Structures are given as C-alpha cells and as structure tokens.
C-alpha cells in the first residue's frame, strides 16, 4: 500500500514539475523553434529550416543599435547597482542609527511601486529639471530601481552571515579593509554574482521605465514593442530573442562555473542554486 501510495505521490510530483516546466519553458522553446521556421507566420505546420531570420536580424541596423544600447546600459548599470546595493545592505544590516528603518523603507519603495509609475515619475522629474531625455536618463532610473534589488539580495545574505567571523578577524588584527576583502566579500560572492545577473537582466529587460525616460536612442525592449505592430517583424524578434536568451544562459553558466571553481579552491561548495537563491533563502 505504502509503495503504491509512494508511486502515486511521485507520479503527481513529476506531473507537477512537468506542467510547471511546460508552462515556464514551453513558450520560450516555441519561440526558439519558430525562429528557424521558413515562414513569417508563427503557426504549424513547420515550413522548413532556415537561418534567414537570423541573417535579417543581424543585418537590421535599428535592431543592432537598440541591442547595443541595452547591453551597454545594462553593463554600466549592473556593477554600479552591485556597489550601491552592497553598500546600502551593509549600512542597513551592520549599523545602528535612528533613521535606519526609514532608509530601509525608502530603499524598498522602488521594489513595490509599479515600473510604469516610476517611469512616468522619472519623466516628470527630468522634464521639471529640463534635462533632455537620453540613454543617460534611462540609466539613472535603472540604477534607482535596480540597486534596491541588490540591497535585498545582499542584505538577506548578510543577515545570515555569522558576524562572529568579522569580529574574529578584527580581534586577530585584520584591518577593516582586510576583514572586508578576506572574510566578508568571499562569503558574499554568490550573492554578488546573482545580484549582478539580476541587475543586468532587470536593466536589459525593462520596458516601462526605458520608454518613458528614454529619448531618441531606444533600448531593445522599446524597439521590440514598436516593431511588433507589424507581423512581418515577428520572426526577426524571435531570432534576436533566441540569440539573447542563449547568450544569457551562457553568461549565467560561465559565471556559475567560475564561482564553483573558486569555491572548490576555497574548500566550499557553492553551486548554481546557491548563487541564484543565496539572497532569498
């Protein structure tokens, strides 16, 4: 009876995992599949294999310009957010001061307020100050909305971090700098890596804030939203999105691989799941 019940439970668990997998990954896999379909119509039957959409996408100057804009923006925003977010997380978790709760609440606001509202607020802010809308204004807003995410991820890790290790390092004669670089940062590495990935992705994927606070240099999501009005562009967007997804997966994989190598050298065992969930566990 028990084994029969166990088999049913295992079956249900497998069914649940498969359902979630299909719902989560199915649309992405279909998108990738149809990027090789020799038809501009995204529907079965499959008309044949082609790389034409990739060739067209990579030859489209507007698509490439928008992609470069987004990559450069995210590449600048992510490290700034990691530094700002980590510093804020350190301040909130390691210092006791009267307005700590207020600062913590202020930092959390961008995580709660809808991006659409933040985008419009940013637009009004820049217009009031007569600042021309450019990629820089988009970047400022991305930093404002993304570094609180890093703060949340790193703070969660810091809260679980044994402070006695910091104190032991200082008691044994380490300077603040040595304590930070030799004790704290190595422990934070998975959280920082995960934060960098999330910060990059948040900036790269953002549409609402980019649309309202951007000027005449468009980011990739804004370009995609604009061109999808014309169904002829759908295969190009599929091809470009597939390429981006592959690159993102490779970046995450190599980051994980690098961290695992470093962790093994240190004698710890940080895996991919540790890196991704380090801040939220």
């Amino acid at each position, binding site marked *: 009876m028990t084994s029969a019940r166990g088999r049913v439970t295992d079956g249900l668990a497998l069914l649940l995992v498969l359902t979630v997998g299909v719902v989560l990954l199915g649309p992405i896999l279909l998108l990738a599949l149809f990027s090789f379909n020799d038809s501009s119509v995204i529907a079965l039957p499959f008309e044949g294999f082609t790389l034409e959409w990739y060739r067209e996408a990579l030859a489209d100057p507007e698509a490439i310009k928008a992609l470069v804009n987004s990559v450069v923006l995210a590449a600048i925003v992510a490290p700034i957010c990691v530094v700002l977010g980590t510093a804020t997380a350190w301040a909130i978790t390691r*210092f006791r001061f009267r307005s700590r709760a207020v600062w913590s609440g202020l930092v959390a606001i961008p995580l709660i307020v809808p991006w659409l509202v933040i985008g419009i607020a940013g637009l009004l802010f820049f*217009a009031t100050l*007569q600042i021309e809308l450019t990629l820089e204004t988009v970047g400022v807003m991305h930093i404002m909305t993304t570094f609180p995410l890093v703060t949340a991820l790193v703070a969660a890790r810091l809260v679980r971090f044994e402070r006695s290790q910091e104190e032991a390092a200082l008691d044994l004669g380490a300077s603040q700098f040595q304590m930070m670089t030799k004790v704290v940062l190595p422990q934070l590495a998975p959280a920082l890596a995960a934060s960098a990935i999330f910060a990059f992705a948040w900036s790269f994927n953002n549409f609402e804030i980019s649309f309202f606070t951007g000027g005449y240099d468009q980011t990739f999501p804004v370009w995609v939203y*604009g061109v999808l009005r014309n169904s002829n562009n759908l295969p190009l967007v599929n091809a470009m999105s597939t390429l981006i997804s592959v690159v993102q997966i490779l970046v995450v994989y190599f980051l994980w691989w690098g961290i695992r190598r470093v962790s093994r050298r240190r004698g710890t065992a940080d895996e991919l799941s540790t890196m991704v969930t380090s801040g939220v566990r």
Partner: protein
Amino acid sequence: MHSPRETTPRSYRRLIAMGGVCAFLLVGCGGDDAPQSDSADDPVSGTVRTFTYDDSIEPEVLDPFEAETGVEVQTATFNSNAQAAAKIKGGFSTDVIEVCLDESSPLVDSNLLAPIDTSKITDWQDMAPAFREAEGVTVDGSTYLVPLSAGPHGLIYETSAFPDGVDSWAALYDPALQGQVALDGGGSLTPIAVTALGLGYTDPLSMNPEEIAEVRDYMIENRDQFRTFADSDSDTINLFKSGEVVLSDGGKGTVTKMQKEGLDVAWVAPQEGALSWVCGFGISADSKNVAASYALINHYLSAEMQALIAGQGFSIVNPEAMPLIPEEERDAADPAQLGSMIPEVEADYQKEWDQAWQEIQVG
C-alpha cells in the same frame, strides 16, 4: 568585541554629497531648448525629431530626406496615441507626431498639436478629398493632421469554405460558423462597429449609449461564435494558417501577406461598408524646428514617397503616386477605394464603447 555603531556613518554623508553633485551635473547636462526654427518659412536645416509608430520611419523614406535637405532625423516610437500623449504631456519634446484619426483626441484635446498651415503643404490640393476633408483632420477650423496612409478593414475569408464568397458583416455571426470565426480585438472600435453594421446600424460610430448596450448584449450572447479575439494581424494570419478559423475581419494588407504565404484567402468590402483607418503626421505644439517639420511632412506626401508607402501594403492618399506604384500593388494602394468607406474616428460615446468592449471580452 565591536559594538554596533550608534551614529550615521561618515560614508553616508559622503554618499549624499556625491548624489548632490551627480544631480547638479545632470541638471547641467540639460538639453539646449533654443528653437532652430519657429516658422515654416525659415530655411530648412538642423535636426527634426519624430515620434511615430515604428513602421512609419522606414530608412528608405527617411534617407532621401536627409540626403536632400541635410536635416538629421531623430526617431522615437510608440504603440498608441494615448501612450504618445502620456509621454508628451510628461515633458517629452518632439517635432513631428504620428496621429491616427481613431485615437487622436488625447493629443488634440490636450493641445499637444500645433495647427498646420495647409498652404505650406505642397501636395495638399492633390490629396484625395476623402482624406483632406475626413472628420478629425480639421477640428474647430484648425487642421492638426496631414493624412499620409490608410487601410481598409473588411472581411477575410477562406475561399474554399465560401465558394460563393461573403458580402455581409452579418456572416461573422452565422450560427453555421460557430467557433470558426475570429474578430479583430485590438481595440473597442472595430469589433463593435462591424457587429453594429451587421445588425443594420448604418452609422455605428454615432450610436447612443442604449444602442451600444444593445450591440454589447448581442456580442456577449454570441460570444461562443468566436474562436478568439485576435490581438494583431499576425494572430489573424496564424489562425487561418492553422485552420482554426475560416472567417475574420481584417485589413487588405493582411490578406496580401497571407496570400504570399500560400493561403487560399480573399478580402472583401462588405455591402454595409468597409471601415478604414487613416493616419498621418501632425506638428508638435512644442516643435523646435517647424520648418524642417513641414519639409518632412511634404516629403512623406510627395508622389515618390507615397509610392514607397504603398509597398508596405497601405493605401496612399496622394493619387499622383499611382503611376509610380507597381501594377500588383495598385489595387490595395488606390486612394479612390477609401471614398466609400467608413473612416475609423473616435466614437461619439467612446467611454461607453471601451466599457462595453471590456464587458464583451470577459463574457
């Protein structure tokens, strides 16, 4: 042992100071708001900024303009006039704005468009009167929009399923086709309007709230008639290709795309009248380069550029371009066909339309 610090760390103060410096620098980076031209009679030069739908800023149209005038064109895109109005009202500055008659009120009502001096529009008198005089082009005596393209909206059907063709909007509600019909659901205007036309209303956009409610109730009652509400022309194409539907409403350009894919479909203007969207360019009330804005509009309205616009599957507005259009595109591009159609403008009771459409969608 180190006790927690009780005071604000000095680094915080430094951070706040740095933030202040950054804000100051940002303010210092403010754009130069000095107008380059505030009259259509000024020499054409400098930079012109456009805020349009993406498919209106094709390089083959803009490149000749830049080459001929030396004016640099900066482009930004949106996906609806309401979205555009929100951004412009928030402070976004631009020169030329794309405006469509069925969604122009957020821009016109908020005074975001400058009146256009039609004497400065070179081909204004050559434009088909149906466009020049269309409702919404001129409001309270001021012209806010120069029409540049249009598109008829009729019935799309699979020819093998209708050997004798289709000629009425009422076919969308034929019980024999239950579950094999799609309705363009990209907004409230077309689904309610085509249903009303099928029910016998001759001027659907002027329906009063009671009439709108009657159409709404009819649509809710017959909700099972439709396989789905298509969000875009690509949705419609996919539904026909997968064989899920045999009849839908949609644009003539959509059928051209489907036929290129080898689908056995046809487009017809129903006997009650086809609808037609009309879009064009207006000039921002905040324009910093009025002369270049007029020059760009004139460029789009020229016969050569209208012929290029026809290549996108749209109807053109300048008949002078017809001889320049390839034979196979002339039927879809011919502005004469739009004269007998019902222009898609905002309905008299637009809020009621939007509310009714929401109720229809949730069934």
